[in-house]
């Protein structure tokens, strides 16, 4: 039997709005399988998002879904979680949403170690607005607002999350659909703030401008440029050049925000 996604999808909402070859549909499917694999009650699942292509995802899922303002996914999610810690809160957004306009919320959610799982869809571009460079667009890459090539330095989202205090940080790609599901499960189960950065292809906004227009080619690129963390740690700097590590990059246990607050103020 093929996997039945329909039990987590809202009836009549598919096909989704994403372009042909967009990696976000692959992410949505892995996410559904991960949540299903944990046997979570849909009534307790809250999904928040900001603005952008990634942020349209919650609208397709049969859960408590909150499509907020640009960058504010985690700020709304924090309010929901603190007001009702029993809810299982998943916040998501794209690279621009989460690390540019929402960057402040991102680092502070990491710092608090609030029990929210944050999925950052990194396709190196602002897709919804038509392909402008984002904080993760590689230097030299083309974007509609970088007609001479991007001059900006890049954020490494996973490093940013680790530096800011997230207690579970992982990275994966849309090539790795099954490992992605497993990482998502680990992140969802982790007590504290967990981040999964997912490298995804945007054939329309990024690929077209950078001679990577084939969706399959973009997925092959992810395979060729990603290295499992265990292997990565054995590699020399020369070997690492142009590549990125995937897998669980960081995992520690620290007191969770709401539990620590409750204990501190005498609520628990």
């Amino acid at each position, binding site marked *: 039997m*093929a996997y039945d996604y329909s039990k987590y999808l809202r009836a009549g909402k598919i*096909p989704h709005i994403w372009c042909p070859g967009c990696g976000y*549909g692959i992410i*949505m499917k892995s996410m559904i399988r991960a949540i299903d694999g944990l046997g979570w009650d849909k009534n307790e699942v809250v999904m928040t998002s900001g603005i952008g292509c990634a942020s349209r995802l919650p609208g397709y899922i049969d859960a408590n879904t909150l499509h907020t303002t640009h960058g504010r996914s985690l700020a709304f999610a924090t309010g929901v979680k603190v007001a009702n810690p029993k809810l299982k809160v998943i916040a998501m957004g794209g690279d621009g949403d989460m690390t540019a306009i929402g960057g402040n919320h991102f680092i502070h959610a990491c710092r608090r170690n609030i029990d929210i799982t944050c999925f950052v869809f990194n396709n190196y571009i602002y897709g919804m607005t038509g392909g402008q460079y984002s904080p993760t667009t590689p230097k030299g890459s083309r974007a509609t607002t970088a007609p001479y090539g991007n001059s900006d330095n890049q954020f490494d989202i996973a490093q940013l999350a680790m530096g800011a205090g997230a207690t579970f940080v992982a990275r994966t790609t849309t090539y790795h659909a099954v490992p992605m599901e497993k990482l998502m499960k680990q992140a969802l189960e982790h007590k504290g703030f967990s981040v999964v950065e997912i490298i995804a292809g945007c054939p329309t906004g990024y690929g077209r401008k950078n001679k990577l227009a*084939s*969706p399959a080619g973009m*997925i092959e690129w992810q395979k060729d440029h990603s290295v499992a963390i265990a292997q990565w740690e054995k590699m020399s700097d020369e070997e690492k050049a142009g590549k990125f590590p995937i897998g669980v990059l960081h995992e520690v246990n620290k007191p969770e925000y709401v539990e620590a607050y409750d204990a501190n103020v005498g609520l628990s």
Partner: protein
Amino acid sequence: MAKAEKIEIYANLCKGCEICVELCPVDALEMKDFKAAVKDLDKCIACMQCELRCPDFAIEVYKK
């Protein structure tokens, strides 16, 4: 080697991105009228890569 009994492709959902066709390791799929189609079911090894990587819920592979 696993085999597929059936590969269901929903033309109404397929957006023709060709991910499944290009990533199929055994060349079992092809494009027809800008949509994915089964080229040779016998070749399919039911690796599920097309189903897992289809962003559009358009392919289902049923293992034998």
